[in-house]
């Protein structure tokens, strides 16, 4: 991907602008009150089974659930809020 030297400052400006726009858009996204009020157990039952069986909370220790939660966020692309609630549920229901 070759870029003309004269166009480099413009290209960098566009990338920075798109980046700022991207971050702003992401931060502007919000759930409704009903969605935000969902509990960890509800999110666990809804989201895990999209790919595999719902995991038993007793499978791992709380420390391991933290790490598994981060790994699953990268795979299932659940939101961070959903991840935190699911992990809290798995840690507390052991």
């Amino acid at each position, binding site marked *: *991907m070759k870029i003309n030297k004269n166009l480099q400052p413009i290209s960098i400006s566009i990338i920075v602008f798109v980046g700022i726009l991207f971050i702003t858009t*992401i931060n502007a996204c919000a759930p409704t009150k009903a*969605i935000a009020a969902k509990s960890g157990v509800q999110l666990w039952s809804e989201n895990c089974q999209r790919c595999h069986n719902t995991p038993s909370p007793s499978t791992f220790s709380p420390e391991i659930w933290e790490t598994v939660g*981060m*790994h699953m966020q990268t795979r299932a*692309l659940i*939101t*961070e*809020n959903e991840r935190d609630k699911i992990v809290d549920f798995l840690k507390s229901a052991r």
Partner: protein
Amino acid sequence: MKFKIQNSSYGFLLLFLLGTIIQLRAQDQKSTVDSSLLERINYLEQQMNYHKSGDDHFMVVGLANFGFSSNKTTNTLNGISTTSKKSNLGDIDQFEFSPMFLWRHEKKYLMEFEPTFSQNGLGVSWADISYFAAPNVIIRAGYLVLPFGTYSKKQAAGWINKFATDPIGIADMPTSDYGVEVEGGLPLGDMKMNYDLALSNGLQLGNDGTVTSGYLVDNNTNKTITGRLGLLPFSNSSLEIGVSGMFGKVGTEGTSFHNVNGNMYAFDFNYVKTYVPFLVNFKSQYNIEDISNADYTTADEWATNYTFKNHSTSSFTQCSIRPTGIQALHDFELAARYSTYNTPSNSTWGSDQSAFAIGLNYWLSWRSVIKFTYEKYNGNSTGSEVLNAFTGITKSNTLYLQFSIQL
């Protein structure tokens, strides 16, 4: 009278002394109890500190598949049929042992590494580091699973896949590559969406028109962009639909292929919902692979020049039903899948293939399963007859018995 008064004084004094002694003893016992309780609490606090999680964490999980397959294949070419029978312990296509190493550095970084031992020897599925930059922004770099469709990234693991085999074609598409990636999930009112965008070295075109990925050294200065957008329109996340694209130059710089581009598209569908007493699971993906026209030369002594329209498609549609609400049957699952794979006609590897698989699974736990899969395959060669690449019609029937576990 005097004697009586003296006696009662002694009595009162005696009672006072006795009371004082009892009180002192009680205080002494109380302080003994208090100090013993404090010691116990201190000990428990110490024990808690010993077992308290650190900021960092390292763990090993992984998966393993092992089984048996029995196959009968008939090939018909120029009116002559040949039949072969095979049976393999190790379930030759799907034997796999893949430990997965996860390092968590506080709550911002995660390193993931999955080496794989299979029929192809030792390999690496992925090796990358993720930075959790903002609430719904994850930045990753390394050897990545490309965000093209969902099968490779989410459904291919043996303990997740409902069948002992991968759908034909889908698993043959390029999966991992070296690059950087940004991804995340976003709330959208009652809905959700997710995005995944990767910049990688890209696919490389072979001398016969096939493409492969996963090269540390790029064959040109162009980088390949791969992206997927997913939408979950229902508030219960039961449905996800996604569209993916992969665009980049695939030809090697300095060769006659230097201007050859690859444009690929994928559409995926995933619906999982409980209709009491059944859990219904429906998944589908359709891939399109377009490589721009190029002139190829056979590798044999004749060095024949030829060209063809380099267009491939692959797809699968599957449905599984598990009676989770029926106590006697809730560990069983029935599944069916239809898959297709069409590669370019008049090439040396052209064919129209289809496969139908039916399976009965028994879940030993939420992450271990015994799978019986029966698969019927049809392949009609569309390879160039001029280049002696026409291989006729191939039909096969295969029975698999496989054990898959996530550890």
